[in-house]
């Protein structure tokens, strides 16, 4: 049986950063459903925040201002000590990345360049043109190669195996063989990313099903603040590929069908660089009022930036627009619409990445520390992965020193693998029922129509009912034909069960939270309510049913205030 001291699940930024922080004396493996370089982190474009103060307009910047912006951006739902920790560590994290090989863009004098981003008081977003995620992911992967990290690629973790509150290991569906393998581990770090693909419109990769978050939930670990789903303001129409916030950071305008910069009505002082929740709602409101185009999109106009600046700062954006929408932003405005982009919520972890299950850790988008609260600022997600990925790696190294694998674990794992195998055999044996992609499409329609940018009690209740019906249908899912090796159909079916859980938790959290905060906008409760709701939602599985708890937000020195931009 495969056995490692530490297994990291996910080879994106958080997973690789954790891998590099694991004590080299320990036996480590990174399991990833794709080759690590194919992880969704690679698609991050605009940058990573740190109060370096390199921009001439940002000399006064410091980590405390970064923390304040993050907390205000979060609509005061972030745990303030956690946000402070992340922002305090940010400058050193950037310099560490630079030393690991990341080719950041530079300012005259040779320091790392920084550009303005939404919701930030100073230009503090470090970048490498508009391929920041690509270069960081490649640099971390390169360093993992140097460290000879053991990778199991194209292997989907299907289940977290724990017994009596003790982590035992994992089961893994190996795509190359179609086998389910048990893997013993003394500690596990999930860095499995987000769940964008539960929505019809998302900037996320096809692989972002979010099953990792669902596996934690099924293992009894609480999910935190899952009702907070970020919709990015500018996804290209109709393919919904991300057009980075950097496009607005570099000076791009949002225009309605009369050529008017409508953000003046919503955020007069910051305009296009208000936080994402505010800009996304503004765009959708204008589209709904008929001020967009084809009732689908508005314009993001970069023409005034000029070809030279676009080529230097936003070359990939230009390429994406030409290839995928047939629009050259040098000569024409880009059609954009809001699309799901990020999960503020996730597996409930503390500031070391630890969950309530000893030995089980999580970092990156799948985890919720919480630093992003009800709305994440652009440029803070890469920072989150790098800072908390490293912290989780260090914490796990400490944890493993004091833990041991026990007899009996092997049997538990073998049984779990046999159970997973039987489940797959059931899908293959059935010759009729529901096809996975039909079920998934139905789920996406429900989430998009009823659990989107604007929410009401009635819609959320309807969504819950529909989601529970889909769960019934999942019990009668099947795949047509013989497929096992390299079967994405099987992968999709395995993940689908977890996606149903996630959507239930998102919807339930949204239904319970009777206020408007950050990305969670209730048409029937349009005000923030600090008296009742300055707290985190915790949803966990008890006796097979979701049970909700709440935990107060940790406030250090920033009392909640009206959020004006």
């Amino acid at each position: 049986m495969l056995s490692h001291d530490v297994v990291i699940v996910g080879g994106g930024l958080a997973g690789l950063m954790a891998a590099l922080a694991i004590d080299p004396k320990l036996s480590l493996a990174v399991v990833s459903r794709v080759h690590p370089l194919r992880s969704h982190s690679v698609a991050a474009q605009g940058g990573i925040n740190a109060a370096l103060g390199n921009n001439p307009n940002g000399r006064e910047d410091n980590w405390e201002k970064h923390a304040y912006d993050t907390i205000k951006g979060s609509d005061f739902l972030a745990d303030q000590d956690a946000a402070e920790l992340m922002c305090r560590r940010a400058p050193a994290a950037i310099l560490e990345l630079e030393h690991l090989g990341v080719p950041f863009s530079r300012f005259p004098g040779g320091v790392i360049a920084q550009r303005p981003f939404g919701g930030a008081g100073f230009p503090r977003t470090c970048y490498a043109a508009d391929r920041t995620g690509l270069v960081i992911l490649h640099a971390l992967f390169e360093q993992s190669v140097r460290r000879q990290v053991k990778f199991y690629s194209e292997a989907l973790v299907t289940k977290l195996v724990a017994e009596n509150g003790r982590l035992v290991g994992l089961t893994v569906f190996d795509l190359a063989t179609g086998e389910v393998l048990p893997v013993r581990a003394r500690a596990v770090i999930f860095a499995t990313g987000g769940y964008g693909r539960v929505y019809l419109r998302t900037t996320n990769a096809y692989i972002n099903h979010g099953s990792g978050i669902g596996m934690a939930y099924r293992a009894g670990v609480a999910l935190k603040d899952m009702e907070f789903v970020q919709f990015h303001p500018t996804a290209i129409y109709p393919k919904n590929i991300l057009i980075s916030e950097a496009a607005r950071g570099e000076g791009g305008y949002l225009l309605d069908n009369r050529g008017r910069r409508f953000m003046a009505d919503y955020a007069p002082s910051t305009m296009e660089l208000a936080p994402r929740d505010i800009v996304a709602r503004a765009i959708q409101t204008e589209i709904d009022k008929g001020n967009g185009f084809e009732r689908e999109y508005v314009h993001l106009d970069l023409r005034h930036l000029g070809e030279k600046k676009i080529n230097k700062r936003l070359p990939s954006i230009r390429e994406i627009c030409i290839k995928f929408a047939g629009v050259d932003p040098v000569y024409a405005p880009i059609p954009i619409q809001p699309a799901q982009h990020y999960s503020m919520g996730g597996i409930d972890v503390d500031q070391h990445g630890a969950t309530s299950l000893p030995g089980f850790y999580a970092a990156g988008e799948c985890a919720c520390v919480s630093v992003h609260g009800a709305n994440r600022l652009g440029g803070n997600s890469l920072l989150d992965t790098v800072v908390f990925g490293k912290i989780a790696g260090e914490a796990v190294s400490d944890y493993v020193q004091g833990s041991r694998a026990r007899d009996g674990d092997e049997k538990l794992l073998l049984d779990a693998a046999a159970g997973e195998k039987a489940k797959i055999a059931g899908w293959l044996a059935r010759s009729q029922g529901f096809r996975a992609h039909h079920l998934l499409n139905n789920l996406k329609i429900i989430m998009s129509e009823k659990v989107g940018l604007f929410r009401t009690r009635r819609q959320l209740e309807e969504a819950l009912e529909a989601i529970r019906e889909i769960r019934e249908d999942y019990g009668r899912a099947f795949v047509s034909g013989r497929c096992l090796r390299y079967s994405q159909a099987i992968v999709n079916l395995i993940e689908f069960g977890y996606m149903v859980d996630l959507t239930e938790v998102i919807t339930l959290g949204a239904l319970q939270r009777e206020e408007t905060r950050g990305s969670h906008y209730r048409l029937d409760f349009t005000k923030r309510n600090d008296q009742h709701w300055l707290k985190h939602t915790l949803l966990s599985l008890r006796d097979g049913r979701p049970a909700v708890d709440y935990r107060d937000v940790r406030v250090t020195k920033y009392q909640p205030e009206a959020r004006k931009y």
Partner: protein
Amino acid sequence: MRYSFRILRFDPLEDKRPYFQEFAYETNEKKSILEALMDIRNDQDCALSFRYSCREAVCGSCGLVINGKFDLACRTMLESLGTALVVIEPLPNLEIQKDLIVDMEPFWRALYSVEPYLQPAGERPEGGYRIEDRVMERIDKYVSCILCGLCYSACPVVSRDERYIGAAALAKLYRFIKDPRDKRGYKRWFRVNTEAGAWGCDTVFKCNEVCPRYVRPADGIEGVRRALVGAKITRLFKRRG
């Protein structure tokens, strides 16, 4: 619009040899080859295997040969082909594992052979490095590489000599040689001073032609050659002096 997809199928565990299978496909939308393949898999044959992830030409998963042209399936639009017949084959120069999925291991091994990671001298400088943008710009196009392997699979030298490490690995090496932070000594990279390394290239420039990121990896090979010659001359003078 109706299309006819002719897709190469092969499961080395079951089939004696690869074969083409026809699939009818109809769509009125502007679909990419990748989206069409996913539809065909979902509706017609769940066993059809291919790789994908980001669908925006940045993860490097979905390199294929589409009507004889090397490209990423996600960024190739059906309507751009100008024909209703779509022939899809896996990347050559690599073993087929199943259908359109090939074994990338030789490509990764070639990459690892150049020690593809920054090798700075000592600890990180307090307050970070000082590097002017024009210096960083020299490696700009090379750090855009997504390691999709298109250049490796299109290379005529790789197809006749499997020892040749190919354009992506050499361009990656050049990216590090030109990086002012990297202090690897000549001893750490002179091993590419062979026919399996920098001198293997036939300058046919297929790599430049197929690169979906416009990296022009052959410029990197050319750069490594210049660096090799330069290093030799420098060492010659050092020895004499």
